[in-house]
């Protein structure tokens, strides 16, 4: 029996049963996600796929990041800042319980923050906690956090998925069975297939509107399209098949929402490995790339060109794309000046996402036009993380960095770019210690200019958030200011 006949029969049966009662609004949702998380403890892994499931749904922090990137109160209902800018006093919500029934209080906050910044911490973003000097429990509902120096980012940092509050009783088992304080609780995980969360009836705040949400893992773009069309999946917050978006736009059953993300897509280069240690070679590569052709060809026109490592929707953004404009002749000239008049042979290692695989093919063709023969090496994610990210065994790669506020990765020692500029590192330190907005904007712009001049990577485009979902669904985020699928306000329209 085909699906249509089946649903018609079921529909008829339901109509008979409930003909007198009104239909209740639908309260379950299946979301499609492209990547399966390695585990689901946000305090122990960098994978975006973790936060895309648990952030704001299962786990909560002192603060949280809202749909526009703003800082909102979460487990802390309010806070005060001392006059010297170094001591935050957080007032916590009362009557908050973890999903296993244990109660939440100031001790859990101290435990979580101390655990995240402790010596044996496995937190992927230890930098978020670097400013913290001490965490003190004043009373069960008050926590005092003292910083080493004033930090403009502290409240924002506490809203990251990596800074959520966990209970000492369950911290060790959160990878497989996460226990948080959020409006949803973990239900089940069928590896390779789906993760199910359901409504937490004992939630302290505004209850979730959905009873159940399923995250179905669909890595293949063609399968993603089919699943949406068939209704097996009702929402794809980050839809991987850019070429079929026009088809969904034309279909009244679906809503297509193209938003922004914090994803700066770059052509990463190994700055310590010849010939990429030569600024002229890096500039030549940047000038060989036509960003417009890249966005049209790989992304079907979705994406905003960038000339430095900063998202265009940020108030401090400056457009520096003209500094590395598409100019093959200049590129050839720079290569000749660098001692490679006939170009050279190199490799381009590509992780699985469409933007990388397609972008890589286009960039390799553009590099061929200036004489650089880049052999394409496709890698799976685990291989990419191991070879490129961890062991820095690569020449060039394409990847999108989707964390917010991540300009500082170019200041990290031993990061996979192998980029080392003391002036830039100083600047990042200054930014972290500055809380005045005007001054920060100025410093951010200076940092963008340094990167655009040094070309530690070729900056390509900002990744779009390509949301496609059933037209009757309300409350999903339009943009991706942080890696999250916040379902707290999601519901089906009647």
């Amino acid at each position: 029996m085909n699906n249509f006949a089946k649903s018609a029969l079921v529909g008829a049966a339901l109509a008979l049963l409930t003909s007198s009662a009104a239909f209740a609004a639908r309260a379950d949702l299946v979301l499609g996600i492209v990547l399966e998380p390695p585990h689901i403890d946000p305090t122990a892994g960098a994978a975006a796929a973790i936060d895309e499931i648990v952030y704001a749904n299962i786990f909560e922090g002192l603060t949280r990041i809202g749909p526009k990137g703003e800082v909102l109160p979460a487990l802390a209902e309010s806070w005060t800042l001392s006059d010297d800018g170094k001591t935050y006093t957080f007032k916590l919500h009362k009557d908050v319980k973890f999903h296993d029934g244990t109660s939440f209080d100031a001790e859990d906050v101290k435990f979580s923050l101390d655990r995240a910044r402790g010596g044996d911490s496995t937190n992927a973003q230890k930098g978020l906690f670097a400013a913290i000097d001490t965490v003190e429990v004043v009373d069960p509902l008050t926590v005092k956090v003292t910083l080493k120096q004033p930090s403009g980012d502290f409240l924002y940092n506490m809203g990251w998925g990596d800074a959520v509050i966990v209970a000492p009783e369950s911290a060790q088992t959160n990878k497989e069975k996460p226990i948080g304080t959020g409006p949803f609780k973990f239900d089940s995980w069928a590896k390779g297939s789906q993760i199910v969360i359901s409504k937490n009836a004992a939630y302290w705040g505004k209850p979730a509107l959905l009873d159940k949400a399923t995250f179905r893992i669909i890595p293949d773009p063609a399968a993603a399209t089919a699943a949406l069309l068939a209704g097996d999946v009702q929402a794809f917050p980050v839809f991987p098949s850019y070429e079929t978006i026009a088809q969904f736009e034309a279909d009244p059953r679906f809503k297509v929402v193209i938003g922004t993300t914090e994803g700066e897509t770059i052509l990463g280069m190994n700055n310590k490995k010849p010939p990429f240690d030569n600024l002229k070679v890096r500039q030549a590569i940047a000038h060989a790339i036509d960003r417009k052709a890249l966005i049209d060809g790989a992304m079907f026109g979705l994406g905003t060109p960038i000339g430095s490592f900063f998202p265009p929707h940020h108030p401090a953004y400056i457009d520096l794309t003209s500094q590395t404009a598409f100019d093959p002749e200049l590129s050839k000239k720079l290569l000749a000046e660098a001692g490679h008049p006939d170009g050279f042979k190199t490799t381009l290692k590509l992780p699985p996402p469409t933007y990388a695989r397609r972008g890589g093919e286009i960039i390799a063709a553009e590099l061929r036009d200036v004489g650089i023969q880049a052999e394409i090496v496709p890698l799976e994610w685990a291989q990419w993380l191991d070879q490129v990210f961890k062991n820095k065994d690569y020449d060039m790669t394409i990847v999108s960095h989707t964390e917010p506020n991540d300009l500082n990765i170019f200041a990290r020692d031993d990061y996979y770019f192998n980029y080392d500029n003391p002036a830039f590192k100083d600047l990042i330190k200054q930014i972290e210690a500055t809380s005045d907005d005007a001054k920060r904007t100025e410093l951010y712009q200076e940092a963008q200019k340094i990167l655009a001049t040094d070309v530690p990577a070729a900056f390509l485009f900002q990744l779009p958030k390509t949301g496609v979902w059933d037209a009757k669904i309300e409350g999903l985020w339009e943009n991706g200011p942080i890696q999250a699928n916040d379902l707290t306000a999601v519901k089906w329209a009647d």
Partner: protein
Amino acid sequence: MTASPWPEGMSKAIGNRSFVVGLTITGIVAIMAVLSFVWTPYAVGTLDIAGKLKPPSWSHWLGTDHYGRDILSMIMVGSRNSIAVAFVSVAIGLAIGVPLGLWAAARGGWIDELLMRLNDLVFAFPALLSAVMITAVFGPGAINAIIAIGIFNIPVFARVARGAALSLWPREFILGARACGKGAARITIEHVLPNIANLLVVQATIQFSLGILAEAGLSYVGLGSQPPMPSWGRMLFEAQTMIGLAPHMALFPGLAIVITVLGLNLLGDGLRDVLDPRLRRER
């Protein structure tokens, strides 16, 4: 018996419809592949993003793909890839499988038993799945695809060669050769091999078409030759999500695979009819 079957076969061949049609199709594909070395309508390495996903027209007979490349040119260059992979993998099968089969038939006993059981072992694995495994372990690429497909051609040829050779060994002319004092190796080369050549040619044609399919399958899952080298399987894979936008992107590489495999199968069928002496007598 060692005389060539050709003089008589020629007229028979021309009268055999599947042989003629198969040879014609295979010839056209081969010519296309050779031609692509010196001429294609457009260069396949150059992208033209502004002219992407164009349907067939006078300037692009088979349309353009998602990077604005000419699909006819891609299919022409891709045929080179398919033919090269299929050809070398058949050559591997012939070069290793046939001597093994002949050796097993000539010696018999435990060598025969051992070789044939090893054959069964390789045979027991589904060929394409194992090829996927081999390329996944040793990395994607045309060379590994050739090796993976070639390995599975070995037992096929070993069996055909052994079976045919075994039926020849008790025959009078072999007995005669042995009586003359010829050794097993010499008999195999001088008398057995020429008499099973026709069977091997037919089998090679069939394996060739399977090789084309296997290469397309491996490229489809991303384990065959890598971009920018065009390959039919990868063209199909890339067309998959564009099918609503540009159906021609899937249609033409698909047709190329179907037509080539069909041509080779017809040729194989035709060759069997033409070359098999038993069939000739029976008709």
